[in-house]
């Protein structure tokens, strides 16, 4: 029982990342009708917003320490971050330590701008082109973006830790009457899950309870009619692209302490996120979220040793097997609407 609970918890934080990326993908597909293969790259760029802020906070002046030597035997050059010089050692270290949460503030405007520029500069020229063209151009863009990141940051993962206060794990088992150490869960993963739920809730509330969101939903249902009412739906959809980019970016920022980011992390999530979108139902926002968590939990179960002993290799194919089963029984996905991509 404790092993099952443990894997459910693990699945929820994996599912959180899938759900956030799939939510952004679905927002873009539902509003603009574009299959955006560069969405994984947006997740990766979000993560590198955190890396960049950490690097900015670590910009330093060099002080020579004659009492120590470097690897060549020369006097050691000690790097003192400017933030420590300006704000004092303790405050400076605290700022550096909190660079990931602080990166959220940077990532939102950066990602909205990137999304806006991407849509106006490239994607809009492909609205009337076949989906295959859209896939090719966005996939090409994803490769360009990841190569740019690699050129600046290298190929190796870059450690971007959570603030010290969130290090360690929480003994969930003891709380619900199990043995000590039977169900442990890292604090940051718990935060990631709560954060994802909050972002998803905010996106839904924005679409549900604001006039802007209402117009966007109307445009998703019938773009032409909304346009005939004199509403500039294209401008709103462009902003939605920016919001979708910001959602992917935020997912990336908060993911950095879970796995040190590298230039390839977007591609690692992209294919799985598309499977999530298809399983949830193309164009369905609740479907994307539901499928994200569902597939995250199933993937966790499949990596249990007991399951792998019974079905070797199942952890690598479980998501695709479930996708096949769902599409065979519900061709429109779990919550897909009729008419989407069926023409």
């Amino acid at each position: 029982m404790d092993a099952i609970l443990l894997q459910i918890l693990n699945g929820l934080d994996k599912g959180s990342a899938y759900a956030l990326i799939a939510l952004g993908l679905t927002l873009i597909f539902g509003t603009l009708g574009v299959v955006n293969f560069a969405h994984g790259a947006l997740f990766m760029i979000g993560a590198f917003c955190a890396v960049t802020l950490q690097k900015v906070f670590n910009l330093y002046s060099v002080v020579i320490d004659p009492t120590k030597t470097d690897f060549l035997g020369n006097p050691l050059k000690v790097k003192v971050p400017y933030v420590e010089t300006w704000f004092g050692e303790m405050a400076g270290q605290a700022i550096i330590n909190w660079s990931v949460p602080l990166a959220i503030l940077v990532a939102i405007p950066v990602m909205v701008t990137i999304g806006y520029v991407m849509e106006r500069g490239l994607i809009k020229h492909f609205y009337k082109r076949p989906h295959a063209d859209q896939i090719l151009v966005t996939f090409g863009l994803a490769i360009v973006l990841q190569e740019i990141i690699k050129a600046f940051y290298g190929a190796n993962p870059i450690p971007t830790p959570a603030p010290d206060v969130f290090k360690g794990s929480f003994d969930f088992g003891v709380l619900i009457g199990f043995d000590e150490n039977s169900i442990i869960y890292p604090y940051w993963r718990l935060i990631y899950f709560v954060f994802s739920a909050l972002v998803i809730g905010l996106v839904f509330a924005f679409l549900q309870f604001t006039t802007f969101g209402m117009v966007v939903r109307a445009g998703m249902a019938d773009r032409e009619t909304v346009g005939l009412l004199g509403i500039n739906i294209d401008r709103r959809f462009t902003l939605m692209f920016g919001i979708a980019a910001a959602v992917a970016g935020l997912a990336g920022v908060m993911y950095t302490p879970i796995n040190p980011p590298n230039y390839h992390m977007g591609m690692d999530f992209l294919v799985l996120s598309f499977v999530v979108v298809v399983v949830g139902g193309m164009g369905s926002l609740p479907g994307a979220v539901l499928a994200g968590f569902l597939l995250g939990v199933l993937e966790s179960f499949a990596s249990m040793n007991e399951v792998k002993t019974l079905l070797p290799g199942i952890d690598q194919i479980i998501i695709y097997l479930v996708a096949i089963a769902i599409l065979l029984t519900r061709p429109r996905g779990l919550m897909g609407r009729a008419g989407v991509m069926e023409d």
Partner: protein
Amino acid sequence: MSRITTTRRGLLKGGATLGAGLALPTIFTSPAAAYLNEPKGSTVTLGFNVPQTGPYADEGADELRAYLLAVEHLNGEGDGGMMNTFSSKALKGNGILGKKVTYVTGDTQTKSDAARASAKSMIEKDGAVMITGGSSSGVAVAVQALCQEAGVIFMAGLTHSNDTTGKDRKANGFRHFFNGYMSGAALAPVLEKMYGKDRRAYHLTADYNWGWTQQESIAAATEAKGWETVNNVTTPLTTTDFSSYVAPVLNSGADVLVLNHYGGNMINSLTSAVQFGLRDKVVNGKNFEIVVPLYSRLMARGAGENVKGIFGSTNWHWSLTDAGSKAFVKSFGEKYGFPPSQAAHTVYCQTLLYADACERAGTFNPCGVVEALEGFKFDGLGNGATEYRAEDHQCFKDVLVVKGKENPTSEFDVLEIVEVTPREQVEYAPDHEMFSGGALGTCNPGA
């Protein structure tokens, strides 16, 4: 009394017969006989096949830096680096056998098929007489087999699987780097000393050739010291989030987690293990411990503070104080501004060893080079007294046991040396069961 009369015709016939007779043995035995890509002009081309893209691109970049440094030194430029400390004095700084060393590079992408394709191109189009490099055992085994078929020498780069000089060994292939067995043999006594005999180990193992052989080696070595292996779970190479593999560890009764992972896998699995607070737990009345049997400084940097206090093994480290290591670190550090990695060290050594073998053999012919390298004993290249064993083309030398440094003084100061394990402790018989099932075969000169 008879008179011997000498005619002009008779003298010519006799001379021709004598000449042919004297030349006959060398026609059949000369090491300078035709072979693939025999250098004809004033230069000789070496092929550096390293990952320039993909997940090990940083490691590949460091290898390439070391190759360029080796080429400089061979051609008599720079400060000479480890050529000055190398026990063999055959290299003169005038290239190899008087020919200036040039090079071509290929990108392995850490994919066997891509690595073979780039090696093939360097051999067939660029005329490379030797191929070297790589940061993965899969690539090393694939390229080694290709070089054997083609008839050029392969000087392996960073490859740690037992199979490279075990069941997949080839006559044309040579490995300077250590292997999984050696890691186990060096680490186990230190682990026993630090953590005791009564330990229960849980292994997470990368699901491919290198992971399997390393797990087998570490499990055997630690079990011989009294440890119990409670579980071994293989993880797909493509895994990025190891939480579902790490989470059940505490519940398994294990008090040690062994991560048979390398590169990005190692960084992510170690990060997950530390996140789950394993190192803060007490199990079976003992502190829970994590072991990373194969360390790389470049990768350890990626794991950040998580490596602190964690034991592992390495082929070489820049903080060694022998004359060879100091010369190499100075040469590399002054040129590039940071210390070399173990990947850089091993490929630099391989280049010098190849060049030296050519000089001693007096030829670039692969069979002559093989003969010169087999059983070759040397010193001064940073690992102490070393031997290229003739039976399997594996270098035998001391192995370093290291641990993540608690108080690093710089971004390069990630690992500290705990013990230099002597060669005798990590040596094994050529027919050891972990290395059986293969044969060197005979050298192939390719023509």
